[in-house]
């Protein structure tokens, strides 16, 4: 008690509490009713599961729309979540699997490879942007980069459909056009969200790794060829 009194004295100037030391502090330890009422409003434990799932799905869908029409907004950054990136990454990895000319040697990227590329690439870009003086947080950046893979996933779906129909020079040209367009779209979308958090003269330094990251993914999509 004595030690704590001595400890509190150096910081007496810090607190503005005007309680005189000779008057003992009184209070009621019992749990007040007010906070629990407030808790009920925010408690999501009692709502039906459907509501929980629909709310999360709506949030994810909302972010997809923001990526489709990228404009400078903070919606992606404010309530970040990693459901969307996980969904997109798994979809992309599943679609990219099994593309090989020879089956006995692995010629196409494995599921784990795509996963590792996407997540470690995102982590490295995030670290880079933080080291360059960015104000964005780690998970916000992961969220943005993950969601902006969506155009490339759509391109992958289109490529696969087109490859099922036929394969040849024209098809390759179509695929090239689609993949290039989606690569540009992804880079532009992620820049629109990330650029505001960087010092203005260093935007190019942050955009380049993003460009490289989406380039590698686009390259994997373009060179995917289905098993014969």
């Amino acid at each position, binding site marked *: *008690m*004595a*030690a*704590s009194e*001595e*400890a*509190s*004295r*150096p*910081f*007496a*100037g*810090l607190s503005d509490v005007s309680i005189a030391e000779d008057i003992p502090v009184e*209070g009621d*330890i019992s749990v007040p009713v007010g906070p629990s009422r407030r808790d009920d409003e925010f408690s999501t434990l009692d709502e039906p599961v459907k509501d929980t799932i629909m709310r999360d799905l709506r949030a994810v869908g909302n972010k997809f729309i923001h990526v489709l029409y990228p404009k400078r907004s903070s919606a992606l950054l404010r309530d970040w979540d990693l459901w969307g990136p996980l969904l997109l990454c798994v979809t992309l990895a599943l679609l990219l699997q099994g593309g090989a*000319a*020879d089956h006995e*040697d*692995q*010629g196409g*990227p*494995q599921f784990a*490879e795509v996963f*590792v*590329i996407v997540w470690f690439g995102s982590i490295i870009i995030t*670290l*880079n942007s*933080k*080291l*360059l003086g960015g104000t964005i947080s780690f998970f916000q950046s992961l969220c943005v980069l993950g969601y902006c893979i969506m155009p490339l996933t759509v391109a992958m779906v289109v490529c696969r459909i087109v490859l099922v129909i036929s394969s040849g020079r024209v098809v390759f040209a179509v695929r090239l056009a689609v993949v290039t367009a989606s690569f540009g779209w992804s880079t532009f979308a992620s820049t629109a969200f990330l650029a505001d958090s960087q010092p203005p*003269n*260093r935007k*190019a*330094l942050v955009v*380049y*790794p993003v460009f*490289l990251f989406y*380039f*590698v993914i686009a*390259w994997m999509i373009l*060179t995917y060829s289905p098993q014969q």
Partner: protein
Amino acid sequence: MSSGSGSRNTEPWGSFDDNLIQGGGSAVIDMENMDDTSGSSFEDMGEMHQRMKEEEEVAAEAAATEDDVADDGEFLGMKGLKGQLGRQVADEVWQAGKRQASKAFNLYANIDILRPYFDVEPVQVRNRLIESLIPVRMINFPQKIAGELYGPLMLVFTLVAILLHGMKTSGTVIREGTLMGTAIGTCFGYWLGVSAFIYFLAYLVNAQITMLQMLSLLGYGLFGPCIVLLVTYNIHFHFLFYGLWLLLGGLSTLRMVAALLSRTVGQTPRLLLCGTLGLLHMLFLLYLHFNYHTIVEGQNQKHRDRFLWFSCCRSRAVRSARRALSRWFLCLLLHRCVC
């Protein structure tokens, strides 16, 4: 450990004297003070401030619950006191453990250690990229080597991307491992491994270069090879490759060699260090070219080329034999040039 130092408090955060004296409140905190490895005094003071605050909280909690259990304590006698003491001790242990964990985390997982090395402007990066192809002839005075990691890191990643492109277009088959893993392993392995090796040699011959500068020098020295590979993975002419290898590879090697020469004293150390670096750098480019796009050469048989033999088979044994032969050929060429 009492003191009348409360009156000496002049600063809101508690002046140095106060904290130093009152920091020894209990044995746990004393030990912590001795183990403190943080460097700056501000860090120390900040930590002590935090500690004092936490102690206050603990004491305040204890005081609050004291009123609560005071009756119980009086009623129960020794048992009540023991329970209270136990709770306080448990709290102290928890707080101490939390402090240790957060200190360790802040020390090791702090990316701010790397922040100074990423403090560059785009113009600086562009200038350094161009300068990496321009050897500077001043070797009597130590040349300035920029100590940054952004440019080298981005160049290594670019090389990885180019290598992937080359492997894909040539249909290279990697038997044990993945395409991506091989590319990353090769590029990062070269950058980090050769930097460390040359730094070790520099340490042996007492050259004036730090590890960061070596990493930076070698990283920027990869700009030439990046351009060469980007061009030659798409345009398959052997003589074009040899020309670019000598020109761009040679220029970037000369730049690195000149920088090292300016920082080394003595003929033999200079020869050792610069010879090793030059050889490794040129051979690396040769290796990247020949190892990763073998199949494409088989499709261009109409080009009259002495090394057409390399383009036939895919099997691993033949590939390694081919590699050994190409290195032998290279030594022969060098030998002919030297003598």
